[in-house]
């Protein structure tokens, strides 16, 4: 268990992570910057303020199920000193370890290969069962998108985790409200999401997904209810904090022009 990090330092780290991400996506000419910016504060809080990756008792595990936000993960790993900064320039280049979606066989701190949606949570359930069999207190964190919760495999995994009382398992849902083509509500609505998760046997909390202090407090204090896995619905904005990207579906995988990138950079720096 790490000592709690200073939320102001996490905010500063998140600014650096977003700036790196913006550079990677602009240079590569591809990425999913909207969902990367919505999940950045969650990833930064986990890697710099929550995860214990060094325990002899089995390290905490972290699975990014929304693998299309790979650039945000790589940028966060670099911020945490888990990936050489210079490797970021190889993002999606031929033979790079930094695939468009994370590959566990290529990078040490990528715990699961993801990209197709609905895969991370079942894998996290398996990791949590393994930790329990080992008698370890290690925690398993899985970050999903919200549109991704339309996948049936997630609901299979939610049932299994609750049935087995995996209270060291945490799912964080990046609730930015948008999926590739439209809003989640227009496509196949999830609400009432919290009630659904509770009815599946999970302890549920909601939090501002851009508030590092609130994220850290929630994620560091699991289990919230002994015997129940924890689901954190993190309310976020796609493209946050860039004004022209925020909550706009087109920024799911649009690449900023040079002028847009300059504006975005200035807005991130002053956020």
């Amino acid at each position, binding site marked *: 268990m790490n000592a709690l990090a200073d939320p102001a330092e996490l905010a500063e780290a998140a600014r650096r992570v977003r700036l790196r991400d913006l550079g990677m996506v602009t240079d590569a000419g591809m990425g999913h910057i909207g969902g990367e910016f919505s999940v950045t504060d969650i990833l930064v809080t986990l890697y710099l303020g929550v995860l214990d990756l060094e325990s002899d008792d089995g390290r905490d595990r972290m699975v990014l199920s929304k693998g299309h936000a790979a650039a945000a993960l790589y940028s966060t790993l670099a911020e945490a000193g888990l990936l050489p900064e210079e490797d970021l320039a190889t993002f999606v280049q031929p033979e790079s370890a930094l695939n468009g979606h994370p590959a566990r066989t290529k990078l040490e701190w990528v715990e699961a290969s993801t990209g197709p949606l609905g895969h991370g949570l079942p894998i996290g359930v398996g990791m949590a069962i393994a930790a329990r069999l080992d008698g370890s207190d290690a925690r398993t964190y899985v970050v999903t998108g919200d549109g991704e919760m339309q996948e049936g*495999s997630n609901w299979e995994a939610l049932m299994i985790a609750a049935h087995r009382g995996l209270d060291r398992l945490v799912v964080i849902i990046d609730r930015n409200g948008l999926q590739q083509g439209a809003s989640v509500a227009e496509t196949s609505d999830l609400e009432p999401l919290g009630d659904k998760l509770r009815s599946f046997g999970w302890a549920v909390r909601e939090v501002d997904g851009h508030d590092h202090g609130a994220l850290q407090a929630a994620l560091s204090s699991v289990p919230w209810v002994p015997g129940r896995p924890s689901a954190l619905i993190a309310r976020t904005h796609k493209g946050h904090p860039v004004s022209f990207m925020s909550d706009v579906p087109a920024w799911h995988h649009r690449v900023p022009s040079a002028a847009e990138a300059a504006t975005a950079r200035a807005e991130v720096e002053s956020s």
Partner: protein
Amino acid sequence: MTLHDCRDAFAQTLCDLAEQDHRIVAVVNDSVGSSKLGEFQQHFPDRLINVGIAEQAMVGVAAGLAAGGRIPFVSAASCFLTARAMEQIKVDVAYSGHHVILCGQSPGVAYGELGPTHHSPEDLAWLRAIPGLAVVVPADPAETAAAVRWAAAYDGPAFLRISRMGVPDVFPDGIEFQPGVSSTLREGRDVGIICMGTTVAPTLAAAHILAAEGVEASVISMSSLAPLDREAIVAVACRTRGLVTVEEAYVSGLGGAVAEVVVEHCPVPMRRVGLRDVAPTGSTSWLMHRAGIAPDAIASAAREVIGHR
């Protein structure tokens, strides 16, 4: 001739290995009974992980267990395991390089009268298309036990096709399975017949029929569909007048794999015996005969391929 259900050798071997290695776990989809894992559950209740009827999560959970240092044997009816969870097999297991052993139970037409929804004639063609996944089809209890022992020690993804159909002993107890290595069960210069799993015994019987007519057949058991023993295929193609493949699957499985090698390296006439359409209702043995997986029909295919009427 005593016939055996290969699930018995599978379950017994898994119990023996689990006794010696605490990392071994079983992951099932309400398939304890159909996998004959009752004894495993009794001895290792914490290590029998029944996820319920949820095949996608079952394979994902197994990948997570492997990431956590366990050696998971996923055991489920092959029709559901392969069709329902194919993306998890592709991504979570094979692409991720996890040491997960997928055990496809009662494959092919083993479920007979239950019908095409419960048959898995597609599984071999599907799985051999996935890079890095070993695909193993044992022929009898000794080879089943050998394949389970090998898979437990092999640090990579594997699929074992385990049949409930009664099969006679072909191999001696205690043999070792080697990936990419076939077994030549009979040498002959006229025709090569390549088989696997439940088709090995009828193929050997077909070779006896042919021998009585003066036709000498080589019989090769290709239990390792992937990696494939390409050298053995090329060798038998070059030294005989034609090849026959025999499989309890669509002919795009073993037949397709052998044909690809033959066409590239040593083109010879070929016949592929196996399933070609959606099966009508019928018993397992009736379906096997209908597909030509019987000594007389295999012998006919061999005569045809070498133009020997």
